């Protein structure tokens, strides 16, 4: 009965979404129709990656599994002014990355994603490009042994539309600014509370509490620095509105205000090539990142009748060095990288092993190190292998429902084809 109800709802939802996203496709479709097709040239770009591997989590070893990622982009250039880049992206993850295993995640079994975007580029002036983007993406997660594809609780669909302008002062110096609107829908996730009658549910309880409408602003700039260093700064500002998730107040009741988050993510990347003699080429890189989330949502811990204001707010600092080395005339390429990040939940008190709240705020430190190797079989085919080791350490000791302190590792090997 429940599934039938969901199907009916989903059908309505799809129709609603189609109506919602149709305008997003008008721009690129119009470009297709009205551009001089007879003059178009198509440049296909392919990126195919196939990997196998395992992960290790606190001593447990996963079964050997595989990952596959496919990117196909038959770019259409109508003339020197107009071009359209449709892109298909698909992937299957049977072996999880270290980052995906956050929270002790022996949770996720496997996942797949399918996405399609269309980007239209118009050269307004010699140095200014205007771009329009529309796209859709779906990700399916099978987290339990008995879940079928499409039934995952956290499956989601994303619809995107956006515009961007890029200014190139020269080949080395430029910047871009973009605005994207996207929706995130979790079609299989409904709050349990919303299915209860008024005697068991709070007034104003939402149903699709994870669904959100998002406004993403992107600002990026790049320029050379002295000593052959290249720098790129990228910042994302994301406003996330949850239309069906009311804010909870200090009494544990729901208010008439819906949840709204803002997230700022900024990173500056430095890269510098080095030549050690005639045979060794090195490229060193460093990324310094900052992220912050500010939410009006709070949490009410009913188990302990504790109100946690601004539960979701956090700031995060990260630094990630990387070095890539190659030997002239040899097809080998070695990459070593690391990342150190500290996330501080400014209003989330830690808990002891029994769940009792203490005074300090929650802090989570993550360290990952990675070593990768690439061997070029020919111009397009490359054999690849990468091993990653990760640690998570936190002063949060209540781990009945989520693990904050763990060690994890994985390795992947396979090949890529780029064209």
């Amino acid at each position, binding site marked *: 009965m429940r599934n039938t109800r969901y199907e009916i709802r989903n059908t309505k939802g799809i129709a609603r979404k189609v109506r919602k996203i149709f305008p997003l496709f008008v721009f690129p479709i119009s470009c297709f129709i009205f551009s001089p097709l007879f003059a178009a*040239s*198509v*440049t*296909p*770009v392919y990126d195919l990656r196939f990997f196998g591997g395992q992960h290790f989590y606190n001593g447990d070893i996963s079964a050997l599994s595989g990952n596959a990622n496919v*990117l196909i*982009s038959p*770019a259409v250039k109508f*003339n*020197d002014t107009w071009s359209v*880049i449709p*892109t298909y992206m698909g992937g299957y993850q049977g072996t999880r990355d270290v980052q995906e295993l956050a*929270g002790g995640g022996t949770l996720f079994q496997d996942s797949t994603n399918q*996405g399609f975007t269309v980007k239209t*580029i118009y*050269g*307004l*002036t*010699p*140095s200014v490009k205007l771009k329009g983007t529309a*796209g859709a*993406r779906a990700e399916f997660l099978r*987290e339990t*042994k*008995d*879940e079928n594809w499409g039934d995952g*609780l956290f499956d*989601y669909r*994303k619809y*995107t539309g*956006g515009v961007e302008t890029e200014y190139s002062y*020269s*080949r080395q110096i430029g910047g871009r600014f973009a605005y*994207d609107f*996207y929706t995130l829908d979790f079609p299989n996730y409904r709050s*349990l*509370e919303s299915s*209860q009658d008024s*005697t*068991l549910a*709070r007034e104003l309880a939402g149903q699709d509490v994870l669904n*959100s409408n*998002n406004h*993403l602003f*992107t600002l990026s700039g790049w320029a050379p620095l002295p000593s052959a260093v290249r720098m790129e700064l*990228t910042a994302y500002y*994301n406003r*996330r509105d949850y239309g069906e998730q009311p804010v909870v107040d200090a009494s*544990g*009741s729901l208010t008439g205000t819906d949840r709204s988050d803002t997230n700022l993510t900024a990173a500056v990347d430095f890269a510098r090539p080095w030549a050690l003699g005639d045979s060794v080429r090195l490229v060193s890189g460093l990324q310094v990142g900052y992220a912050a989330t500010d939410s009006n949502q709070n949490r009410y811990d*009913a*188990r*302990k*009748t504790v*109100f946690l204001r601004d539960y979701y707010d956090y700031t995060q600092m990260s630094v990630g060095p990387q070095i890539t080395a190659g030997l002239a005339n040899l097809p080998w390429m070695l990459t070593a990288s690391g990342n150190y990040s500290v996330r501080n939940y400014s209003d989330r008190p830690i808990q002891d*092993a*029994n*769940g009792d709240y203490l005074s300090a705020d929650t802090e989570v430190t993550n360290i990952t190190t990675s070593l990768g190797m690439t061997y070029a079989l020919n111009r397009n085919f490359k054999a690849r292998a990468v091993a990653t080791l990760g640690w998570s350490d936190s002063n949060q000791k209540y781990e*009945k*429902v989520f693990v904050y302190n763990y060690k994890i590792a994985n390795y992947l090997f396979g090949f890529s084809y780029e064209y």
Partner: protein
Amino acid sequence: MNYSTPPQSRVRRFSGMFLSAAFLISLLSPVAVLAESITVKSFRAPVEVQRVKIPNKWFPARVGLELTSGDTIRTGAGARADIRMGDGSKMILGSSSRLTVQEVAPSRVMGLDFGRVKAWVKKLKGGNKFEVKTPIAAASVRGTQFEIGYDEEGKTGFLDVTEGAVALLKDGREVLVPAGARMEFVPDSPLGEPVPARSQGSLDEREGIRREVGLGMSKEEVMSAAAEEMRLAEYQEGKTLIDVNGARVRLEEYIIRRPVEIAAADRDKAFKLVVLNERDDRFDYFYYRGLFNATLPEDLSVALKDINGKLGTDAPSYYLTAYEMGQSNTMDYIKDTASGGHLVKVTYDGTNYILTDPANASNTRTVAKDEQTVLSGVTYHKIYDPVNDRFFSLTDAQYNAGDYNAAVYDPSNDSFKYIASGDTYWRTRYNTYSHVINGASKQSYTPKTAGLNTLAIDLDATFTYAGGTLFSFTETPSGSDVLHNRVSLYYGDGTKEVYDTYIISDEGVIGPVSAFNNMSSGSAFKSELLKWNYEQVAGATEFNGRKIDLVVEPKILIKSGLIK
């Protein structure tokens, strides 16, 4: 008539012949001139031309403009120029490019300062050639199609040959690039070998596309991270988890203020704790609704902190006057209700507990902590537990082996404290109680004496059971070494209830009794209990084989006073 030709006529005749020849020449010469001309056939602005005779000045291009040796043509971003030669050869000068006509005839030589030009070259006669020179290399052909480009900033160039063959000359070395091949060149390196050309699109275009796709992917990652963050938050809050069998269990727990089923005048004094459990094939829920003596504060924990009793001379500000606890699998339900809640003051003198109704000082009774009786030579101890308001019997041996002091939960440090001599303890007792399954009353009690609040239920209340009698039986069906108890209640009407209670780990494994060794009573047991989960599977005659299966943390039950 014989006419002689006068001299003037001969002059005119010569003159006519000359004119005819000149006319023929004039007819023929444009062919030769046009064959050697280079003209702008069409263009998309901005395109400009600099005449060799007027240096340093750029003029807008126009259709039909003829380019001569030394003229330069340049295109802006997004612009292009279609340049035709008299013999049918043509060039497309790409955007952001600059080309100088160095020689028009008999060979045609162009200088590509930067940018790119694509050429379709007709077969040339004799030793004539068509050549495009970049600052670091030159492509020379006799008839072919090719594209050559040069990046001024990157100092890199390329040559793609579509038809025929193109000789690429750089630093004195000439490499013949055949059709379908590509040659890339940089300033300080000698020419390498041609490589297969991309069938469609140049490397530059491909890199540009990759860059655009990469920018899109970066944004995709940011957007996908939002979805990932929401998922992790659900796990962090314990709203969803995967059990040891790989099955998903969803939990939601929340507090409802001012429950709608409570009379409007009392709603401010009431709350309801709801626990929802969903599995793939079932849904169970539990709720506890409490009605207090006073309007509840915003911080509910203030009212709840003394719900299990309070040590000290001051009476608690908040106490329950009624409650209802229900559990259900959506088809069956068990409901326990109590009303007439009131405080009972308990003082302990080391031997006896004195129970007093604070609302009526004359309503009091004294209960011995330990009342011994001897039956058939065996000493029995009747122990009174004032916290749980119950009596239980022990043999002398059991009594001497254990610790049976009453312990009170202390919310300030989440532990238990024994009631010592001289202590005052406050607890809540109810005047009426009922236990109902699917609408059938199974157990209930009412005060023995109308108008007097109960002090000790066993002494002050009259119990009623379905069919008049109740018999309970406890067993350990999984063995005596694990924490799985089954309590069966048999009523006089032939119905029964069966409660399987499990103390289980987070991984779903039934806990061993050894985990509670030496903790068979008192605070140590309850402290240890906090580390485990509590699962209760309830069955009843009225359920027709169905069960109510709830997994909750014992903390919830202890906090709400449901585990004594």
